[in-house]
């Protein structure tokens, strides 16, 4: 059998699925997003987004919630990744398992668990009321805080993975060298570990930001009707209002703004590093 024939036969089945379920549908969706009600070419779906502050406000809320999630996953994930990098053998395996395994269980179920914990009659509120620390239940759910908690739980595994990958590659003798030269633990962390883990931080924050921007389930379940984000809005346009062109345009605008923000961010970091290297 010729090489060419083998390659074709082996890749064709997967390529057919990719073309038929991914590439062609995406092109169709892009085309549709440029259609008006009369099915003529039009930019009105995109123009609407920039003319009406309603949409811009929702975009800003989506970005805000995503940024808080990035911050929370970074602050909580960094110590875990550091611990994993310092741990050896069995311990590292156990911690990895305990962080990654929950990630493989449905997000609907994890969100449900948080609803039981954070709800008005949830565990936290009932406990605090029973202890007499508060009188009226705290609002921990169906607001932006609830969504950020849910998203942080959903995506912290990605952050830990990205950070751990870059922390594992740091030569431990560098820490030793720093401490022999008299640097304190804090100094070693800020001058050695943190700068060297920057690639992991960039990878983790970028990934968590992109995932949070397009998250649908958690904002729907833990944000309720009060925290509308772009994915929820796009879903409503597609499934309830049945304005498919607008729904498609919203989804692409979301993707577009995520790409723009992420590339601005990585550019900014690269420039900063460039200056740092050449200024010293």
């Amino acid at each position: 059998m010729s090489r060419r024939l083998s390659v074709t036969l082996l890749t064709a089945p997967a390529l057919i699925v990719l073309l038929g379920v991914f590439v062609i549908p995406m092109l169709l969706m892009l085309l549709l997003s440029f259609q008006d009600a009369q099915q003529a070419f039009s930019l009105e779906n995109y123009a609407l987004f920039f003319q009406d502050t309603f949409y811009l406000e929702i975009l800003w809320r989506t970005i805000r919630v995503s940024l808080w999630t990035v911050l929370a996953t970074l602050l909580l994930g960094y110590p875990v990744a550091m611990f994993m990098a310092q741990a050896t053998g069995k311990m590292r395996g156990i911690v990895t398992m305990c962080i990654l395994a929950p990630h493989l269980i449905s997000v609907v179920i994890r969100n449900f668990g948080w609803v039981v914990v954070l709800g008005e009659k949830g565990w936290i509120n009932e406990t605090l009321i029973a202890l007499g620390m508060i009188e009226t239940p705290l609002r921990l759910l169906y607001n932006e805080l609830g969504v950020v908690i849910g998203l942080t739980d959903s995506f912290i595994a990605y952050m830990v993975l990205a950070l751990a990958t870059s922390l594992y590659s740091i030569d431990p003798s560098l820490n030793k060298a720093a401490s022999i030269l008299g640097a304190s633990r804090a100094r070693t962390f800020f001058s050695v570990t943190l700068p060297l883990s920057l690639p992991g931080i960039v990878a983790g924050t970028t990934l968590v930001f992109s995932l949070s921007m397009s998250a649908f389930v958690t904002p729907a379940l833990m944000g309720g009707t009060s925290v509308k984000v772009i994915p929820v809005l796009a879903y409503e346009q597609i499934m309830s209002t049945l304005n498919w062109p607008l729904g498609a345009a919203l989804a692409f605008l979301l993707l577009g703004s995520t790409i723009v923000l992420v590339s601005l961010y990585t550019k900014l970091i690269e420039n900063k590093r460039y200056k740092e290297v050449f200024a010293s």
Partner: protein
Amino acid sequence: MKKINVLGLITFIIIILVNLPFLVIIPSSFTAAGYLAFPPEGFSWKWYSMILDRPEFIDSFWTSIKLATLSAILATVLGTLAAFALSKYKFRGSGFINALMLSPLTVPSLIIGISALLFFTRIGIAGTFTGLLLAHILISIPYVVRLVLTGLSSFDYTLEKAGYMLGAHPFRVFWDITLPLVRPAIASGMIFSFLTSFDNVTVSLFLVAPDTTTLPLAIFSYMQETLDPLVASISSVVILLSLVFIILLEKVYGLERLFGLNSQSH
């Protein structure tokens, strides 16, 4: 030493937090009360027997199992074949095809779901099991391709050559030499695909009809209307089932390796 302890303590707390949903759901599924409560009140199996009275959960459970099994098998076959071609032959455009195979990972599920709905409506398979299955195969292929490619990256193709030279049929060479060496990667690709399909909500959301609803979607819809211990009991069943597959994955391949963490780094 002290530093490790502080980090260890923080890590321990975060491990508790990411597992808190399960630590809360499972006990509250055994409550004897008529409402959702944690800590649970009393002990009873009644919320489990009540699942059996809800056809929407039973039916969607079987739909999910059927869907996850079929999409895992098909995605594994398609992804493995493609990965073999990409690893064995350096051909023009192989870089492009490789990128294309992984590309569904880089596009938000929301867009995959919406675009599939638009296209499937045109060709008349929106809301059918076939449409749902195709979409689930699509989202699983990248994982299989990536895992099998990793498994094959250390494969020595002279072994295959040796097989041919000794007169073995190509199929025999594949079955007896190539396959056993990448079996862990393929098996983990299949288990991971099963879990990917079994957990998926965002893509399914756009593609199900009332009679093809999947279990996570049934729970999702139910949760938006009612929050009662029934959600806890059905969730516990899913947690337990997922746990079986996670343990299998750990045994077959190892979660660290699956997520690209090299445990032999230092």
